[in-house]
């Protein structure tokens, strides 16, 4: 035997039809006995399936087996309560259901891995030197086991037919007993901020990408949008040692939400931290350069940076809702007390909903919404969800800003307290306080 014959058997794949020629098996019907080496095949031999010649074959190395999925692949029960979205809203609903019923089948469909983390931490975690794995409190697979739910990770919901009680996903279609939409909202990116050039930190994965891109050295970062997330991030990035430029259409940070005395204090605070604020202008385009990105502003200026972060607000994806015939007004319209959508058998909660046409994208109401839906789905008595304006707390660490009540842009603010470190304002109607705002830390009261 020559050395030639002691090599392991090889396989060759037909590039036209995908048939695999295995040297060990040969092609007896085509005149090649088992053990015919590929190079010994005559040139006039043809693929037994599609007829191409040996020149259209190439060496085939079977791909390594894919890693086993982290969660067991359990076929979803036809009687499941199906939840779309495994953020805080989705998991809160699962927890609320399990608190009432250990048995009811639940299927959780999520575009990500379903890892549990606290989203508000994302805008303050860079300066704490954290990395994405440290922010995940529990993996989606572990939480699914703990709560006894079928988790369909990396799965997109693509269609709903309410009359059939059918949800279709990128991993198959199934019927549901009840459907709960908790898929959140996505960043509203203007055309000037294309996805491949801008980070968004609406979920852990996006944050992890930004963190990795910034890791190791001080970087130049442009933050587009000086709303709550943009201001929090700008402070966090500055604390982490990066050179931050904050860009907004308005003349000051958070100017769309806060009255000017508060905006002025926040602007001074960010300035002291080294954040450059560029107001009264938008971004015209962002281009990739060899060294990073160039941000071209609408006012003609441009700046060279390493990374761009878009904090331009959120919008609820409407396609699924529209396809299912759900009423939609800046979010999936739900009843204020039951969280039921306009279509029988479908509820919604969290960032994807709107109540009386107003989206509500805060953490505090979500567990209460989940409680109300869980009781309803399991036919347990419940007084209903009571919607109230959440307390807005800006997580700018050195200059905390807290907004309570329902501020009305048409009403003026009265100063309650003012010194160098602290500002307290309020709005009144008919002698009643309807909104209050504090900027900075309240003066300590010495014990009397």
């Amino acid at each position, binding site marked *: 035997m020559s050395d030639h014959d002691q090599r392991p058997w090889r396989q060759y794949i037909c*590039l*036209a*039809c995908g048939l695999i020629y295995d040297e060990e098996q040969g092609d007896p019907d085509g005149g090649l006995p088992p053990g015919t080496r590929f190079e010994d095949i005559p040139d006039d031999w043809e693929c037994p*399936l*599609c*007829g*191409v010649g040996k020149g*259209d074959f190439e060496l085939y190395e079977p791909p390594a087996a894919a890693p086993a999925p982290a969660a067991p692949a359990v076929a979803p029960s036809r009687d499941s309560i199906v939840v779309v979205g495994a953020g805080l809203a989705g998991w809160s609903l699962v927890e609320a259901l399990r608190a009432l019923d250990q048995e009811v089948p639940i299927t959780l469909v999520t*575009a*990500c891995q379903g890892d549990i983390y606290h989203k508000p931490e994302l805008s303050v975690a860079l300066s704490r030197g954290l990395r994405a794995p440290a922010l995940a409190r529990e993996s989606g697979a572990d939480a699914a086991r703990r709560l006894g739910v079928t988790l369909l990770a*990396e799965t*997109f919901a*693509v*269609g709903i*037919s309410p*009359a*059939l009680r*059918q949800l*279709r996903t*990128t*991993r*198959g*279609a199934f019927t549901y007993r009840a459907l709960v939409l908790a898929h959140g909202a*996505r960043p509203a990116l203007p055309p000037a901020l294309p*996805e*491949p*050039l*801008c*980070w*968004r930190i609406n*979920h852990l*994965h*996006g944050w992890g*990408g930004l963190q990795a*891109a910034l890791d190791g050295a001080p970087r130049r970062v442009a933050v587009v949008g000086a709303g709550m997330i943009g201001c929090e991030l700008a402070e966090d990035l500055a604390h982490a040692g990066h050179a931050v430029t904050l860009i907004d259409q308005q003349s000051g940070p958070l100017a769309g939400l806060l009255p000017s005395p508060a905006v002025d204090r926040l602007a001074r605070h960010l300035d002291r931290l080294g954040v450059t604020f560029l107001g009264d202008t938008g971004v015209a385009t962002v281009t990739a350069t060899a060294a990073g990105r160039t941000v071209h502003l609408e006012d003609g200026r441009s700046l060279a940076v390493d*990374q761009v972060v878009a904090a331009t607000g959120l919008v609820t994806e409407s*396609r699924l809702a529209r*396809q299912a015939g759900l009423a939609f007004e800046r979010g999936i319209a739900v009843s204020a007390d039951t969280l039921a959508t306009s279509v029988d058998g479908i509820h919604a909660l969290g960032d994807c909903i709107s109540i009386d046409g107003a989206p509500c994208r805060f953490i505090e109401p979500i567990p209460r919404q989940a409680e109300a839906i869980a009781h309803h789905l399991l036919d347990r008595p419940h007084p209903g969800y009571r919607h109230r304006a959440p307390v807005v707390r800006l997580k700018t660490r050195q200059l905390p800003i807290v907004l309570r009540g329902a501020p009305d842009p048409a009403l003026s603010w009265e100063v309650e307290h003012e010194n160098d470190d602290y500002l307290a304002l309020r709005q009144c109607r008919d002698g009643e306080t309807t909104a209050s705002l504090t900027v900075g830390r309240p003066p300590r009261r010495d014990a009397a």
Partner: protein
Amino acid sequence: MNSLQSLPAEAPDHADALLERVADIADGPLAALAYRIDQEGHYPLEIMRALGEAGGLDAHLGEHPRFDLAIGAMQRVARRCGTTGFLVWAHQVCGLYMARSGNPALAGARLDAHRRGARFGGTALSNPMKALSGIERMALRARPDGHGGYRVSGVLPWVSHIAPGQYCGALAQVRDDRDRIQGEIMFLLECDDQVELRPCPTFSGMEGSSTWGIRLQDYPVGAERLIADPARPFIAEVRAGFILLQAGMALGVAQGSLDSILEVEGQLGHVNRFLDQRPDTLRAELEDLERRAGLLAATPYDDSRDYLLDVLDLRTQGADFALRAAQSAMLHQGARGYALSAAAQRRLREAQFVAIVTPAIKHLRWEMDRLCREQWPAGEETSA
């Protein structure tokens, strides 16, 4: 000229009359040929000719394009014979390529003959559709011939609704003399003596689809054969329509399966009621699909991501539904449906074909997954 062109295409009675003519052909001569087409390889060009004369092959073309009617005609055909439904689809999309090519050599008399079923041609876009989605590599390669045209070489394993003297829309990757990729061209591949047609293995069904392997060696593509150069913008334009039209095959096979269930209901209903996927459930899903197909058919050139997702979702559900309906028809019919001559078992294989013909269910889901994913800086991609 197509006899229908003198009629206002949007008139409701025109639409009903067209679908009625198509149904007469499908329910009569076509239904009688279904077994021969499926198992004996009869290529039903006489049926295709009749369908062309009835206006069943070109409702989606012309001044008043009606994709809903094109799908409706295909559904009526596929209800009686899935293979012929597939031929109607292949013929319709080939007409779409010619009509939207903007190439005068492919329009005019040439297109008229295609529209009325006097000449026949299909589509060889299975491999390119997958190649452009990143699933496999492009099978045909084109080299500029130095005179403004190209020479195309390569092998396509199976192309349907072609024969000597017929044609198909095809796509090739352009390489320059240093083998660098220079984009793609789309062209009308005419099966003349420069094209080698090779027999395919015997399939388990759909044998009358006239499916061949094609081998090209320096096949000349001049201006008169070009559909699009570059091809990608053209593919982006027709992709949703290409996939949407396939709904007609799925709906027809499913509806035929529902027919088979109802056929035995009087006799076997007392035991069949223990089956799931009963006719009322299947009918509700059929109507849901028909309704959505009708809505999507109104805007076949909508280039938005949401529209494409809706089309992909419909096509996926259609294939899945055809499989479930065909399986259910077998269970409802029992042994009589299992006879080799029975429509119920033929539809199992037809439904399987609907589920695996490009884009197959797995490709559709791959594509929906790709469209749903967010993009990230530095080439990193991940889920929402």
